[in-house]
């Protein structure tokens, strides 16, 4: 199983709930006490998609108008962009259209664009009609979902859809045949369950070295229990 790092950029007006969506997506994947990222502006999560592991590196951007000029630094090199608007605020949908234009002009050529209409739990005060947004998304071949970070609606679906649209790497198989994924699990003693903390892809020949390195690294950091295992790929010989 291959591990791919996918840079995903979050765009959209301030206050539409960009970071809430990511937080929802990421929160159930590990214990906050061992969250390896220092803040919510940059978060990661690894999910399995078919026979690949996708590690999303999620870059949040500041949505204020005054920081518009900085966006290219963030979306450059992104595999996907999630543009978020607030279904209760018409103007956030107009901003979204500007983002789409800018991405088409300056963004990476094959960037996967996803449109997320957030706060769909507030249907009573809706200003953007779902069908309008859906039609617009279809017209630009973008992914479309209405989400609710608050009620965890369609959050995972959004990322699954992104995984699905990311061009497969089958065309460029890795140079070395045998490869493994090292999976680090933390044995959470207090709750007596296992948490997958991280996954690395490595060539089988290097696995030993990596395991030792992880081992050394973790030794003084994680005091409860942990283990590293290999999964996928061919069996190590």
């Amino acid at each position, binding site marked *: 199983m291959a591990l791919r*790092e996918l840079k995903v950029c*979050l765009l959209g007006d*301030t*206050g539409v709930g*960009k*970071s*809430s969506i*990511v*937080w929802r997506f990421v929160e159930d994947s590990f214990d906050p006490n061992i969250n390896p*990222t*220092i*803040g*919510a*502006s*940059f978060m990661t999560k690894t999910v399995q998609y078919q026979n690949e592991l996708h590690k999303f590196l999620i*870059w949040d951007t*500041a*949505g*204020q108008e005054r*920081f*518009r*000029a*900085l966006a*290219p*630094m963030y979306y*450059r*090199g992104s595999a996907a962009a999630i543009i978020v608007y607030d279904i209760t605020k018409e103007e956030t949908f107009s901003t979204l259209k500007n983002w789409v234009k800018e991405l088409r002009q*300056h963004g990476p050529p094959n960037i996967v664009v996803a449109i997320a209409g957030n706060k769909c739990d507030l249907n009573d005060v809706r200003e953007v009609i779902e069908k309008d947004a859906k039609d617009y998304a279809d017209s630009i071949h973008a992914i479309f979902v209405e989400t609710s*970070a608050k009620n965890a609606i369609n959050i995972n679906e959004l990322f699954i859809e992104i995984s699905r649209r990311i061009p497969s790497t089958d065309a460029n198989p890795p*140079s070395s045949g045998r490869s493994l994924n090292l999976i680090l699990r933390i*044995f959470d*003693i*207090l*709750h*007596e369950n296992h948490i997958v903390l991280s996954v690395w892809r490595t060539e089988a020949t*290097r*696995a*030993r*070295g990596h395991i*030792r*390195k992880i*081992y*050394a*690294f*973790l*030794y*003084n*950091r*994680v*005091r*409860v*229990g942990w*283990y*590293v*295992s290999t*999964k996928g*790929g061919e*069996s*190590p*010989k």
Partner: protein
Amino acid sequence: MTEIMVDASKEHAGTASQSQHTAVGKHGSRLPLLDRLSATRGVWELLDVQPEQVKRLLSSHQPGSFIIARNGNEGSRTLFLRNPGSENEAVCLFPLEESSAVHLKGSQLYFRNLLELVGFHFVSRDILPCLLRIPHIFQLPCRADLDAVATLGTTFWTMPLKPGDCLASNEAEASSAEPNGDLLKSRQPSCSIRVTSENAALCIVNPLFLSVHSDIEWLDLAPSLCRSSSKRGSLQLSNGLAKQEGPVSLKHLGSLEKEEEMVKDPLSCSASARRKFLSRRPSWNSSETEEPPWSPILPQKEIRSPHRVSWVEGISADALPCWPLQKAHSESLLLNDSMLLPLIPELDSLSVSSVEDEGEGLPPATPSSQKRPRSSSSTFTHKVLYRLSAMSNALTGFLSLERRVSKRVQELAQESTSVVGGLVHNFVGHILRGAGTRHPTSTEMLQEIRQMISNLKGYLCESSDLHTAYSEYGEAEEIDLGSVVEGALYKCILKPLRDSIYAQLLDFRTHDGTLNRLRENQVTLSQQSLGELGVAASVPDGACLERIQTKLSLLHQAYSPKKKETQMLKICKMLYEAMNLSCDKAEPFGADDFLPVLIYVLVHCDVVSVQLDVEYMMELMDPSQLQGEGGYYLTTWFGALYHIENFQAASTITRQISVEAKRSIHQWHRRRTIHHHRRNLQNILYVSFHEPFNNQKTISVPPNMTTALVCAACAEKYGISDGADYGLFLVSESSSELLTEDSYPQKIRADLLQSQGGRGNFVYKPKDRPLPAFGSSLLQEAVSLTESHKPLESVGVEQSEVD
């Protein structure tokens, strides 16, 4: 897929050791520790009881017994712990601090609630003098019983002790003071680590985890009270028998090697047989009784680190049972090289950056002659020390390999006769003499340096020089060679160049007006209110700003981009903490909130230094690291500076967007293009401007690209408008040859590599102007560079073939 079991009852057929059934297998239903604690909370959390009474209650109980109560009337909860130490201080107090998280005052470990805190301290003592201890009554298997216990409240503590409870440990303490050889021979509980291989999975289990649970067994509390308590006794009993004669030490060495083997070679272990038991007697196992090989080393630890976090500190060297130092020394001669290395200093630190902060030159081990009264907790600490020493020996061997490689790189770089040394020496001299100023922009100057680091890294990673440095370990792929070499090269190149680079950066940025604009806008922005700056979260207060400023100066002083990055992330973390201070927001802060706060902070700091630092990091960091967290925050810092520098009154902003965006993209593109160079080294041609090695640039030249097209590319790169007057020359030691327009530079380079070993340099210069006369220092340097440059070119080819 994988399976771990702590199964101490397995006996290895081949070992002579007697094993004892020490652990119980799996139990169908057992309550998790937290549930047990939760159920019995009424017993150990006595908030209405006066402190004096709590102390009285605890004083008759075993060390490690504890009660949570209020100390005085302030209302803050306090952990009362029965101290293993002297009688007059029988109960220690550890105040709890509770804000959004609970922690012991003075500890860095935060917990979501009291239960978790208590639960954790059964496993790791952190700042406590000993682990917390569960009264055996808590081990009752069923919830209803526990509930019944909980109703006892204070009376629980005044009930007469169970005989087994008390006796076992007394016995253990007695025997640890007075070892008994017979007992040792007859009962040696051993712990086996089960490594299974199912579906090609393999696992390594943290030995600390295993051993903690195999002997303390609180995971397997359920089955029977008396069994558990008697077992505890015997475990501690045998553990106390740390005195052993010489031969055992050799045996121990053997077992340690075996252990190392397992760590080194898990793949073959797991593959050799499915579901095979690797039963052994790990040296870190508490119930093992071999001699610790680290005795000459231990005192150093004690001197270095006073009582702080977990596992080791605060333990007196002679808490070990009267260990004859001399003997230990002679035994240590039997141990191999790596085992003699001191304990890794970072090993017991909780600091996240402790491994990254390279510990250069460990302090020499100094034997201690201090005497301290033995504490009864030493039985436990012995166990820990055994484990730790074994682990650290394994790890030291491993880490020292990195150090050796790093040292080797530095040696190579210092030998001016070696290829690398010559190259480094010339390059450093070249930059120090002000070569950087010949570049039109600071970005290009830094990229030249980065290119040199990348090239040397590529060369070194493939070179035989380095392979011999670690071939003795027989495991070529054990370390992340790239990052080790990268770090060593920082030291060789960036350390001597740091000041010069900064001077030149300052020069560039002063001239192009960046710094002036920054300073002016800094003044403007610092007069704006938080609202005007768009800050919604709380900002760091004065004290926090001071701490940030301290970190910023550390960041500024470092020469290694990696260390700068570490400091930068620490600052970002402080910002998040400050933002969260006066806020109960459920979701954490994202970029919408973070960026304005960052801008606020930068405006209140030395923004000019930060500008130079960010540029330094941006260009010199390992490009492969730029997609991760460090890359994200570096981008954000760059963005914040960019925003400050280009700050304008609100009315003009909208019109500027597209221009700014374009400019930003353009800049970004330039600074990231370098990252693609290594992908296709085969097509890279190094071209110098005007004279060899001046303003050298890399140009992507496929084999079928003609000189005319290369010239066009050069004209664009060097910004030459009258390209017709310029030509591409092949300059070697004595000759300079203008290449014809229909020739193929890559082909010429390939021929050159074969015929002359690559001595030659492509120079883009005016056709009618001669090269500077021979004898000038620059050209001599250039020639020596040419010679030493040869291997790099061949590396380029090799690498791309590998790719």
